Every structure is written in C-alpha cells, then in structure tokens.
C-alpha cells in the first residue's frame, strides 16, 4: 500500500512537470512568433520609438518631436538624454535596449556600420539626402557607397579672436596672427590630434585616402610629413603660441590670449568671454617652408543614426528624417547654433548673418577642410596621432627621429587586425 502511494506520487509529479515543460516550450515558441510579427508591424507608420538627444539639445528637439507626433498620431516618441559622442559605445553595449534613433558624430559611421548597428537609410531617403544637403555632409554619412544616416549639422574648427587686439587682416596668416597677438591652442595635451592632424592634409598629404575609407591611403611618412612635424616643433619657440587647453575660455576673457581655435559649439562661451569684441574667421594660411598654404581643419558631420535592431524601422527612419529636415535644422540653429547642412537652411538670412555660421560655412569647402575619415580603423588612429603631436611639440621626439616615427605611425595605423 505504502509503496504504491509513493509511486503514484512520483508518477503524478512527473506528468505534471512534463506538461509544464511542454507548456513552457509552447510559450517560448509563441513569443518568438510574436517577435516576427513585431518586425512586420514596422511596415506601418506606427510604433513606440526612443530617441537619444544630447542634453543641451533636448529642449529644442522636444518641440519638433511634438510636431512629428501630431503628424503621425500612431507613432509615440520618447526623448531621452544620450551623449552623441558616446553613441558607438552606448548602442553597442546593448543594441536591443538602445534608442531607435540617436545623435552621433559621422566619424563613427564606418565602425558602427561594420558592427551592424546602423540602419542603411534606403534608396528613397538616400535620394532626398543627396538632393537637400551639401556634398561634404553627404560624404560624411556615406560608407562603402551606402548612406547610413541623416546629416543635420556640420562642424569645423574656426578661429575666434578678439577684434580689439587683432584686425581681420592680422588673422589671415598664422605668422602675422602669432606675431601680432597671442593664439591659445593645444599642442601638448590630449585633443591635439583633432586640431592639428589636418596640418598634414594642408601640406598635401592624405590620411586614409581621398574619401577617408582607404586603409592604405595614409602617406604622411614623406618629406611633407616631416616638414609638418618640424613646424609643430618650432611652435614651442613661437612666443605668440600659448599652450592652453581647458582654460582657453578663461584665458580669452582675462586677455592672456587673443585668439583660439574651436568649433561652433564654443560660440556662446566665447560671446560670454569677449562680448562685443568677439570676431570669427576661417583658418589662416600657414607656411611649412614651401610658401603659404591654407591651413586645413577636419569637417565633422552631425548625424541622426537609426538603430539596425529597431522594431519599427519605417517609423524610426521617418523620425530621423524629420529631425534632420530644413525646419528642424532651422530650430537647431536658432536654439543651439548648429550650422545646417541643408542647402535651403544654409541660405536662410539669419544663418548668413551669423558670423560663426558664416565662417563654418566658409570652412566647409574642400579648400579649407577634409571630411574626417570614417573607416573603422580611425579609432586606432587618434591615440597615436595625439602622442605624435604632443611629443613632437614638447621636443621629446628629436628631428632626426621624425621619419622613423612617421613610418611607424603609418605602419601601425594602416594595419588591418586579423
């Protein structure tokens, strides 16, 4: 009797647990089928989408998002703050939970596209983007002949100066600028790579080829590259060049420096520091020993990327398109001083009347800037470039070593890791 009891119990519990198991199996299957439905649901203009916006842009973008939601009542958009500079890092951490649409700088396009994090915008959008934006912005979002994002702003360093100390003619060349006034800039600390790597381009060399996608296209280990390094080393002796990084703005205010190189993002701060003495110009010319040539800067494109793992691709692409259209670019310019990429927005009178925007626009042609390379390997380009410039400026690299250092640099940064 007793024995039968326990056997029954054992059998019973086995049956129960088996059925539980099958149930669980069904459960998981049904959930996976609903997954595929969700993707199919993306065909319509509806869905819950999340967008990451730089904190200081949130106010401006929220008003535009409201308008977008009004036009597309089935789409619900959540705006969250997310740092555009960290887009690659934050999206790759967990693409499924990341935003559907996010702000990013274009130099992460290659890497994020290679990692399968960016949604190609599709043929129709590509045509729109090409028709409505300036060429350099289109170049910035194109990787391997595919467009991976919606450009909404361009950035390039310009020259801010104090017009009570320097005249517009003074700032036309590096030599007059630094003999008549003091230029505060950063040769010796992290961040010098972004400001001064384009010097090689100014002198006629190339970094990752003409389109910034050619891994073997760096040729700075030549005569011209050595000239650039010697020039950087000379700046240490130049009394008109003041090494300053984080404190540039406070130095500008106190009059320790009269000019500095920065992008449109510094406009408000410079205004605060200099008041009505603020003036903006394009980069000066510079002489590496073979006559004056235009000093170049990197051109950065600000982009809305769409997450490849998004559940509602159609709606997300629509939102990204909306947030980069002419109207939004106008709002972004007014509220945050973002220089537009949209040709119509660029033509607006308020843009044309703004000194900073005008200088950035002047810089945006190929004589003044080169679109920052965007191939994935660019991440291993920045750190050694920083140390190359820092150490040259500080005199840690002797002139006899220039060639070797450049050779090593080119070798290291052109290497495809297996």
């Amino acid at each position, binding site marked *: 009797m007793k024995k039968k009891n326990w056997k029954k119990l054992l059998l019973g519990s086995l049956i129960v647990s088996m059925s539980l198991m099958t149930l669980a199996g069904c459960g998981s299957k049904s959930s996976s089928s609903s997954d595929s439905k969700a993707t199919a649901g993306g065909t319509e203009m509806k869905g819950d989408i999340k967008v990451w916006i730089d*904190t*200081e842009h949130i106010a401006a973008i929220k008003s535009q998002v409201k308008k977008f939601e009004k036009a597309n009542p089935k789409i619900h958009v959540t705006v969250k*703050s997310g*740092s555009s500079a960290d887009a690659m890092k934050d999206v790759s951490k*967990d693409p499924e939970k990341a935003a559907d649409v996010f702000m990013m700088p274009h130099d992460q396009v290659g890497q994020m596209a290679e990692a399968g994090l960016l949604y190609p915008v599709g043929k129709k959008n590509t045509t729109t983007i090409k028709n409505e934006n300036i060429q350099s912005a289109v170049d910035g979002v194109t990787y391997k002949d595919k467009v991976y994002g919606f450009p909404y702003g361009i950035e390039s360093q310009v020259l801010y100066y104090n017009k009570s100390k320097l005249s517009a003619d003074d700032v036309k060349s590096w030599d007059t600028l630094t003999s008549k006034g003091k230029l505060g800039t950063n040769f010796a600390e992290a961040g010098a790579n972004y400001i001064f790597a384009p010097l090689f381009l100014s002198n006629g060399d190339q970094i990752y080829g003409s389109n910034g996608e050619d891994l073997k296209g760096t040729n700075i280990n030549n005569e011209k590259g050595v000239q650039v390094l010697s020039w950087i080393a000379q700046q240490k002796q130049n009394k008109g060049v003041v090494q300053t990084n984080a404190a540039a703005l406070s130095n500008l205010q106190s009059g320790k420096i009269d000019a500095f190189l920065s992008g449109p993002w510094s406009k408000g701060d410079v205004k605060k520091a200099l008041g009505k003495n603020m003036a903006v110009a394009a980069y000066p010319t510079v002489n590496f020993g073979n006559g004056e040539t235009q000093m170049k800067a990197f051109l950065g494109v600000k982009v809305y990327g769409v997450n490849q793992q998004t559940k509602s691709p159609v709606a997300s692409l629509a939102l990204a398109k909306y947030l980069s259209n002419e109207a939004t670019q106008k709002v972004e310019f007014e509220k945050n001083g973002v220089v537009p990429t949209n040709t119509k927005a660029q033509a607006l009178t308020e843009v044309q009347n703004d000194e900073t925007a005008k200088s950035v626009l002047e810089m945006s042609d190929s004589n003044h800037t080169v679109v920052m390379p965007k191939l994935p390997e660019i991440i291993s380009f920045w750190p050694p470039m920083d140390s190359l410039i820092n150490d040259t400026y500080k005199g840690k690299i002797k002139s006899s070593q220039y060639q070797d250092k450049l050779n090593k640099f080119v070798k290291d940064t052109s290497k495809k890791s297996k």
Partner: protein
Amino acid sequence: MEAKAKNYKAKKRNTRFLVYAILTIMSIIWLFPIVWIVLTSFRSEGGAFVPYIMPKDFTLNNYKILLTDATGNFPFVRWFLNTFVVATFSCLLSTFITIAMAYALSRLRFKMRRPILKIALVLNMFPGFMSMIAVYYILKALDLTQSLVALVLIYSAGAALGFYVAKGFFDTIPMALDESAMIDGANKWQIFTKITLPLSKPIIVYTALMAFMGPWMDFIFAKIIMGDDVKDYTVAIGLYSMMSKTTANSLFMSFTAGCVLIAIPITLLFIYMQKYYVEGITSGSVK
C-alpha cells in the same frame, strides 16, 4: 639639576610648538580642496576654470538649479532619494551576507572551508571591467536592468567576497564561549544569534557603514546598468554625467554644489561612526 629640568621643559615646549605647526600646515593642505569645493559651489561667475580662489560674487543659484531641477535633465533630489534607497537596502542585505559568510568561515568547520577561503581571496583580484558587460547581460536575462533592484543585487552579491575583515573579527572571539554554550544544549543557530552577534557590534556597524557608503561613490558600474534611465540614476552617476564634455564647463558650479550636498550626510555619518570604523579594521587583527 634644575637647569637640566628647565632645558627639558623648554625642549618639550619646542617640540610641541613644532607639532602644532606641522599639524596646522597639514590641515590647511587637507582642507584646501574641500574649502575650494564649498566656495566654488557658491560662485556665480565663470566656468570650470578661474584663476582665483575667492569667488567674486556669491550666489545660491547653483543649489537652486540642482534642487528645483530647472533644466529637467538633472533631477538631483530624485537621485538623492534613489541612492538613499539603494544604499539602505544594499546595506541591510550586504551586512547580512558578509556577516553570514564571515561567521561560517570563521566559526564553523566543514570540508570546503579552506578551499573557499583561498578561492575567495583570489576571486577578489580580477579587475572588474571586463565582467561589467557580462553582468549587464546576466541582469538582462533576469529582466532586471535599469532598475534599482539590480543595483542592490549587484552591490550585495559583491559582499559575499568581502568577508575578510569580519572573519578576522570573529576569529578573535574565544572558541570556549561556543563550546560552553554547546554543552548547555544550544544549537549553532542559537550560538550565532545569542552569543556571537551581540559581541560583534563593532564589526556589524563597520560592515554596514562600508556597505552604505558604496552606492554613493560608484559611478562606472552603475552607469552601465542604468543606461539612459536618468530618473533612476544614483547621485554618483548623475553628478558624473554632469561632467560630460559638453556640459562640464557650464555645469561645474552646480556639480560642486551637488558634491557638497552629498558630502554633508556622508561626512556626518562617518564622523559619527568613526569609532566603529577603527574598531572594525583593527579588532580583526589584534589578537
């Protein structure tokens, strides 16, 4: 003889003077950054860098920005409450876990004891960064990311390996106490709760204090778990997020104001509890 005594006294006075001087100088060095934070939090002009120490204009605005969340992006009060909740719960859980582990490994004898001691020592030595992403996905598999529960869980799970100090303390309690209780018929649970725990106030307070302070300081790990969920940030992530490249300059004074606000309760707590802190660390080793 008298002259010698006088000489001795003078010498003593001199050394005392010297000690005061050294202590004063050191105090100034140690207090300088703290005073600077406090002063900066009241500064109304400039950004992250100004070439002077005394602010030119004083204002309460920096505090106001934080406490009223004027921008809508930095809900400091909410962060503060989050941190408090996380700290309280992880303090309770961690203390329980640490004390349980320490007690078991110190007072009880079982087969795996020595191996566990060695493994725990070694496990503490791996740099945590690589595992952060893994922990994130484990939490995600449990559907716990972006929640305060996840933070509590993580801080408490780490506590299981931080038992060394507490174990040292339990080692010092004489075994004879346990043995006599055992003869009186007490089981181990009773010995633990009725005899050992009442004797262990310093180490419990020490463990709790450390566990409570942890969440106020951690910013990297917590950020990975919380992601973009700004509302559920702890103060450490929140304040650190204010120091991002684009906002560092404009928000610097508010940042220091936030620092002052979180430093006050922790400092008071710590000063109040410092006796236990010292006892906790030293008692484990004094035999």
